[in-house]
């Protein structure tokens, strides 16, 4: 960091910028208010449909791989929550990478005296997706209520840490992949790949078993996004999982930041 301002002042600048950015996004969305309600309706439909379709299997069995129906609902609720966070926070920013590189507007971002990673990551917010994480958490609550067990404060704290780590992790993976756009120029479809991988988080990883379970924990860390936070709420996970999750997400975050900076050095801009 260079510049004469104190670190405190800089943090203030970034917070003020966030305020302005999100006001912009809100004003933008006001233009398309119907979209918000259409999205809420659609999300609600998919939520109910997902819950009902899994119900079918539980007509024939009490548990699958050790998970009861209400516990699967908690995982599924978390899938909708994390997916919603992805749609509301990450996609509106990182999915623009192709546009930034193709239209050359990345040049404008890079000539601003503000951290470029901040600008590409938090410039926009998907206002009409705000309801998705809330609907997801609603399903989590419903699953817990159905099971008849309320998590204690420790479990909720653990859950909060794991959900935050999941968000950072998802962001880090997305930035790593979208940064490739700097070389490939177009990464249309990259966001669909991330969404597709996330889709496997609909179910507890133990459903998949064996090698796939290992893959979803260690290689594509989807387990950290839905299964582990759900286990925290259900009293199945302890602090070691949280320590692991924080370590993994912090590592990926740092790796993505380093990779972004490395990519910018080989960025040559669009056109002549």
């Amino acid at each position, binding site marked *: 960091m260079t510049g*004469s301002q104190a670190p405190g002042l800089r943090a203030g600048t970034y917070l003020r910028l966030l305020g302005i950015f999100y006001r*912009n996004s809100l*004003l933008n969305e006001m233009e398309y208010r119907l979209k918000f309600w259409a999205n809420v309706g659609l999300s609600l439909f998919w939520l109910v449909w997902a819950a009902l379709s899994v119900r079918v299997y539980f007509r024939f069995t009490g548990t699958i791989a050790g998970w009861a129906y209400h516990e699967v609902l908690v995982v599924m609720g978390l899938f909708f929550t994390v997916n919603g966070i992805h749609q509301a926070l990450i996609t509106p920013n990182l999915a623009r990478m192709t546009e930034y590189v193709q239209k050359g507007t990345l040049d404008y971002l890079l000539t601003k005296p503000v951290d470029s990673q901040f600008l590409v990551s938090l410039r926009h917010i998907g206002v009409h997706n705000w309801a998705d994480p809330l609907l997801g958490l609603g399903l989590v609550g419903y699953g817990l209520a159905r099971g008849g067990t309320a998590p204690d404060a420790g479990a909720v704290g653990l859950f909060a840490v794991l959900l935050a780590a999941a968000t950072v992790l998802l962001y880090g993976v997305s930035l790593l992949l979208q940064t490739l756009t700097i070389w490939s120029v177009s990464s249309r479809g990259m966001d669909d790949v991330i969404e597709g991988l996330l889709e496997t988080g609909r179910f507890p990883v133990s459903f998949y078993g064996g090698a796939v379970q290992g893959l979803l924990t260690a290689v594509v860390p989807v387990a950290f996004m839905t299964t582990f936070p759900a286990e925290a709420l259900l009293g199945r996970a302890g602090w070691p999982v949280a320590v692991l999750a924080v370590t993994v997400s912090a590592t990926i975050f740092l790796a993505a930041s380093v990779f972004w900076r490395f990519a910018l050095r080989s960025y040559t801009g669009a056109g002549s």
Partner: protein
Amino acid sequence: MSFRIDAGEIVGFLGPNGAGKTTTLKCLAGLLHPTAGRARVLGFTPHERERAFLRQFTLVMGQRNQLLWDLPAMETFLVNQAIYGVPEPQFRAALDELVALLELEPLLDKQVRQLSLGERMRCELAASLLHQPRVLFLDEPTLGLDVTAQATIRDFVRTYSARQGATVLLTSHYMADVTALASRILVIDGGTMRYDGDLRALVERHAPYRLLRLTLDCQVQPADMAAVGDLESADGLAVTLRVPRAATKERAALALSSLPVADVAIEDPSVEDIIRQVFTQR
């Protein structure tokens, strides 16, 4: 290629497509690392992109948009105020001046997508100048604009630079932009400097002739005009002759006395032609 630009100069970059004009600007703006050689701007090494450097210049690219598309331009101005950390009184003063110079008042509340290209470019310029940069990199700022809008932008850049003492580096396909604004021009091609100096000297060096445009009363044989000058073009009774710059007056007098002239005009060759010559004389 090597050059140095002093504070407050307006310098025009000329050259064919792909000559390296934009690349040079990008190097100076810190977007590209020079593969060889060194660039210094305001005492900074551009590609290190120090904040103190980024605060002091602006980059405007005619074909690229930084305004928020669905919102009024004012929203982008506020974003840039926050990005550059411009204090409110300074921001208001800069904004008022830009609004007056660029006649933005009626545009401020309109969504950017509803603006014409010329209106949008005026807003782009304002957005880029609110932090009162000392150096302006303008890459094709008038691209695609109609003649009136081009003239507006041109007048603005001249006035603004004079008022703020800002240094301007400008590239343009439109010769008129460069001739109207730049006191000094750099002609580059294939990454090498073909000319660096003032425009008048370039004209004298590469075009030591002027054009005598004659309208004749009746057809004249080319041989009869040879004493006046070299035939440049002929279209019916309209004839254009090249005459040595130093002997313009004598040759014009000769034309009037020896040829059936109805009308005469003396012109300088267009800068386009001269530049074309610079590029063909390798």
